[in-house]
């Protein structure tokens, strides 16, 4: 495969640099950590000297030159396990969160901007979904379709759509009552335009903050699904199940349990830092008040 490098025009490159600078120090830190984990998920396993599947070393070995993060309860290299787990956590959790928030926001916009029949139908349908306990729902889906990464992504997304929809709808309904939306309607604009151009930009800030929170929930859900044996199947493991597997080392303060926990913390904090410092969002908050 050849890598094509397309030179950006100078103006555009400068604009990118300006946009990056607007993130501020904490936002840039968040971006850096986030991109580190994304790269680790994409290329990490290929770069590792040994696979996380190889056991044979001492059980719960401490940090050493050979095992940078120690070993786990079967003597497997922890660094390799965490990097490989990034694929599942970053992949499944991030994709599921994005899917849930995007779908929820879209449905919320549709409910707010269209007539009350569509609004009522959507709201009641998603309320019904909320009524089913999330773990029970996941159990049913996994029992029906088997556990695989796509099934997990879709299950987690479906579970978190109603929450995003509720928040998005309550925000969008308020915006929908504004005079500028009425003006757009009297101009003859369609529902799609009203949703996308008039309402969406004004609810994007809170929805992104919600996305950050929701990401944390999805990571927790995946971890608990793995605990029930419904999530990522052994020998592969996401970070949540790595913590559970190695919980025995907690009493000794072993790196094997702290490393995946720190990885979860760093990823969730990074996602929230990056979102809170999105340039447009900060500007809007300043402009609004």
């Amino acid at each position, binding site marked *: 495969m050849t890598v094509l490098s397309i030179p950006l025009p100078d103006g555009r490159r400068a604009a990118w640099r300006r946009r990056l600078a607007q993130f501020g120090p904490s936002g840039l830190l968040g971006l850096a950590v986030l991109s580190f984990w994304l790269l680790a998920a994409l290329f990490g396993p290929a770069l590792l000297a040994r696979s996380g599947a190889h056991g044979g070393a001492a059980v719960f070995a401490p940090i050493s030159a050979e095992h940078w993060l120690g070993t786990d309860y079967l003597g497997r290299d922890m660094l390799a396990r965490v990097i490989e787990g990034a694929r599942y956590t970053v992949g499944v959790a991030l994709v599921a969160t994005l899917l849930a928030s995007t779908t929820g926001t879209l449905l919320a916009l549709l409910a707010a901007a269209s007539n009350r029949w569509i609004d009522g139908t959507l709201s009641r349908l998603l309320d019904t979904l909320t009524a089913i306990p999330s773990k029970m729902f996941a159990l049913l889906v996994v029992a029906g379709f088997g556990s695989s990464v796509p099934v997990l992504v879709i299950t987690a997304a479906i579970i978190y759509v109603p929450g995003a929809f509720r928040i998005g709808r309550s925000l969008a309904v308020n915006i929908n009552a*504004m*005079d*500028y939306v*009425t*003006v*757009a*309607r*009297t*101009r*003859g*604009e369609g529902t799609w335009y009203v949703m996308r*151009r*008039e309402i969406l*930009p*004004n609810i994007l800030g809170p929805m992104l903050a919600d996305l950050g929170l929701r990401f944390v929930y999805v990571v927790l859900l995946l971890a608990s699904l793995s605990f029930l044996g419904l999530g990522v199947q052994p020998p592969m493991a996401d970070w949540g199940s790595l913590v559970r597997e190695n919980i025995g080392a907690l009493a000794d303060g072993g790196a094997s349990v702290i490393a995946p926990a720190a990885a979860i913390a760093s990823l969730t904090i990074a996602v929230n830092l990056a979102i809170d410092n999105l340039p447009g969002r900060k500007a*809007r908050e300043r*402009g*609004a008040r």
Partner: protein
Amino acid sequence: MGSLVEVSKLTIAAGDATLVDALSFTIRPGEVLALIGESGSGKTTTALALMGYARHGCRIAAGQVRIDDIDVLKLDARQLRALRGRKVAYIAQSAAASFNPSRCILDQVVEPATLHGTLTRAQAELQAIALFRELALPDPEGIGARYPHQVSGGQLQRLMAAMALITDPDVVILDEPTTALDVTTQVEVLRAFKRVVRERQVTAVYVSHDLAVVAQMADHILVLRGGRMQELGGTDRVLAQPAHEYTQQLLAAARPVARDSGHQAGSTPALLEVSGVGAGYGARDAQGRPKVCILQDIDLRLERGQAVGVIGESGSGKTTLARAVAGLLAPSAGAIRFDGQPLAPTLAERSKEELRRIQIVFQSADTALNPSQTIENILARPLQFYRGLKGAALQRRIAELLDLVKLPATVAGRLPGGLSGGQKQRVNLARALAAEPELLLCDEVTSALDTVVGAAVLDLIAELRRELGLSILFISHDLHTVRAVCDEIVVMRNGRKLAQVARPDFDRGPHHPYYEQLARAVPELRRGWLEELDQPRPVRVVA
């Protein structure tokens, strides 16, 4: 006799900006001083400083405020609590927002007295009832038992005055107490305030942007602009011989100037014909009548190039009429014809071209402009949508529109949040004009603006009418404004049309009694107008 309130070199800052700049004035006991100026001139900030209070983000940077012999700015938090409500009382603009909706009125009115320990509960209640009577409230003995939502806005404003006066404070601060009220209600409230102020010899600071209101209440007028004092003098002197240029502008803006377009009734064909229109909300019954009827049997005719004003108090259905014409609310009865063609009742049934020809301009530019779109994008959309303009042609047209509403081209890249109220209203107009409409529905376009800024917007509308030959349906609660721009006035009340008055008859009777009442309720820019209003009027002989 010395002065009761003495303010010297008062300076209030917010960050780097100076909101009030070295302001000095004194008030003698029993006098009313008016602080007047446009929004952002620092009049409320100054009034609040009299209570030793600075709003969040502001601080009192320098100066002195003395009330009696207390140095207000040197008091600590506990002493300030003792001062507020006892020595200095405050009456806010929105009484509805100042009352706790879940407690009955009397409990709240007597609270300052019992809290400061000036009266016992029983004495305070007697005092409250006496005040209710003085403020001409209906059923003074019983009104205290009601809850805030059970009385009208004008009554609530007077109840709030009772709450402020119950401790017999040395100074009362009235912050735009009648701005949120209808003209007819405003007169009642002003009359009650005036009486109490006179009888109790209250020393007061009256904050307002309306010179005509101030003329009725104040002994002295202090004109503020950008936190600086422009002029201070006796009311008669300031009204008769304004020394400062800005005061002259204020006075000019407050006097009604007819902006006649020279349109002759009957000279052009009808553009909009509304016949027998009724409208409302809720489910419809067997006869097709909605559950809540807002409009009933409205007839209206608007000729091409004509401006028709619709006037009435809040709840009279005037905005609903505009919504029906715009297609936002389907009429339950009657028909609307536009340029000879019947107009479909809902937006979805109207063609793009029909929608383009009628544009609506809303009251509050704050909510009428999308805060996340730049002015350029806001103006570009109707041009792209109706005309399909692109590139250089689009840019040229946007520049033309900004020029038309007298805004600098530099605002194009800005967000609405960075514009002033008047500028936003101009953008709002420009967006409607971008569609090149034939009929403009203006819903209270100047009521959120200051007198000077509002007058400038009215001038602009009159000019656009002359230049573009626009027809305008102008909705307002302010007879003053409507008379200034319209060729005909339709008077509405409780969803019905009461009268229609053409320009030559604006000042010539006889009119419908309600129109007369509205006309009389507009404060005039001279002292003594309020007192004359109370005297029996000579019966006018109709020739």
